[in-house]
């Protein structure tokens, strides 16, 4: 089988708050039901996580709050500095070395060129007082675009795609509903045609009907653009709808990973079984 190489390969992702001590791992992790070491107080937000995403693939990370799933995503996006691990991205113009070791200047360039992110809270991904078009233009400007007309064309094309009324392009997202803010965020994330899309709890906190529209949009964009995507969510319904493979995290560790339908129908780990049996769907 001639399978494409992974577009993202991360090994040993680790993030801790505190210095750690020799007995940390005797007390923390999924097996111990906590991520804070009782001896030294170090919190292991995420420990030794491996993940791989192939071209066109949608990988899910599911777990309760505090499981470390968002930490993983934020390290990949350089929002948090990794305390350990190795990240490689196979895309044009990306060096074949541990991308955590780059200079902050290069990290910024790379992030802008290769990744797109949508946060749960729109204010993390958007400048609320800058027009929606401007929010999209910012990423284009970072990539060196210097023609206002071209940027406006690209922005209106993206807003149309994400079902934001184009006539509101010059309005600030501050004035928009939560669902529409999310759609502007998605448009911004896609502006530079990223090789990797990161979605962090994108529908959490939205009304159910709005959630449905945002999910539909993401799925449709997925079908059209085939962009490799990491979906982080506590919601098994979101994971079921968007992903083909997923990983289950608890207390900073991956307890199980597999095909999404297998995780949902034949969960192996006790925690996953609990998660699946607790889900409303």
């Amino acid at each position: 089988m001639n399978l494409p190489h992974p577009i993202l390969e991360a090994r040993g992702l680790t993030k801790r708050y505190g210095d750690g001590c020799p007995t940390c791992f005797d007390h923390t992790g999924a097996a111990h039901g906590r991520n804070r070491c009782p001896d030294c107080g170090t919190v292991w937000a995420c420990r030794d996580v491996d993940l791989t995403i192939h071209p066109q693939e949608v990988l899910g990370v599911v777990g309760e709050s505090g499981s470390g799933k968002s930490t993983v995503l934020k390290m990949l996006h350089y929002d948090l500095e990794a305390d350990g691990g190795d990240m490689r991205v196979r895309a044009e113009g990306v060096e074949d070395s541990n991308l955590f070791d780059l200079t902050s200047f290069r990290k910024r360039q790379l992030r802008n060129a290769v990744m797109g992110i949508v946060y749960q809270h729109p204010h993390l991904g958007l400048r609320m007082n800058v027009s929606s078009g401007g929010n999209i233009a910012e990423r284009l400007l970072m990539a060196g675009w210097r023609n206002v007309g071209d940027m406006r064309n690209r922005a209106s094309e993206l807003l149309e795609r994400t079902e934001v009324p184009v006539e509101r392009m010059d309005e600030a997202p501050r004035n928009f509903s939560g669902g529409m803010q999310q759609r502007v965020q998605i448009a911004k994330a896609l502006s530079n045609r990223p090789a990797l899309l990161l979605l962090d709890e994108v529908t959490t906190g939205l009304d159910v009907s709005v959630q449905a529209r945002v999910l539909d949009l993401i799925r449709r964009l997925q079908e059209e653009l085939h962009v490799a995507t990491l979906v982080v969510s506590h919601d098994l319904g979101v994971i079921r709808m968007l992903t083909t493979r997923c990983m289950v995290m608890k207390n900073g560790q991956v307890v199980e990973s597999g095909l999404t339908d297998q995780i949902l129908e034949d969960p192996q780990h006790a925690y996953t079984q609990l998660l699946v049996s607790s889900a409303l769907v």
Partner: protein
Amino acid sequence: MKLAEWTERQTGETRRAVYSFAFIDEGAKREIRRKTLKAVAIPGYQVPFGSREMPVARGWGTGGIQLTLSLIGPDDILKIIDQGSDDSVNAVNIRKFVRSVTDVETTTETAAATLIQTRHRIPEEPMRDGQILVFQVPIPEPLRDVEPSEAETRRMHAEADYSRMWLHLYEDIVKYKEITIGSRYPLMVNDRHLMDPSPIPRWDCPKLHQSETLYLFGAGREKRIYAIPPWTEVEPLGFEDHPFRVENFEGKTCRFCGADNAFLDEMKDEETGETVYSCSDTAYCLKVLNEKGADS
């Protein structure tokens, strides 16, 4: 000049003898000169310096004064201007002060000066090699209006991440169909650092590009020195379809000298109430008038 020599040269005015030549002590001068050299070496980069107390309040040109005092020698010919005028209170007082601590010759003629300190203008008369123009700078940080955090603006300079400023210009165009920045227009220096040229009008910005003259910028309150050495690339930010442009004075001339190629101040004629224009650079205006007088 050593302090002893300087003291010796004093003729009875003993009250000045307690000061070094050019007021500030030699150690401070050396520090400012070192920082100035660093600024020249990294065009557009803001070099922190130990801004001293001056006999005027910070915010009244103390950055420019410290640069001037650290640079000036007994043979310099000094010109001080304030928004183009040699005669404003600020210019007159700084000139008096520098003269009283150095005894240098002063002038209002741009061409005659070796050292010019300015507030918010570049002289109309082209400056040449061998001259130095010192700017008084209120806000050295070009990104301050788009980013309040100093830590963040330093990061942005370090990474040459100027997208926020570009975004500001984009938003300006969206709102007003043009870039509305009148003064303190952001400039890209040597293709690396974004720089605030002090509140000079857009009109003066092109004069900074590939110039014969050394431009030094001093911000006393903010404790920063930066520079544009001669023959440096200086490019005002602009878009392909909304390029940088200077103020348009088409069809307007100076009411005194008739100049149609100078930056003009707009004012109301007190008697007739009509809008009239005059050269902002008064020395230039006078020069044009004199030349006209000589011709006729």
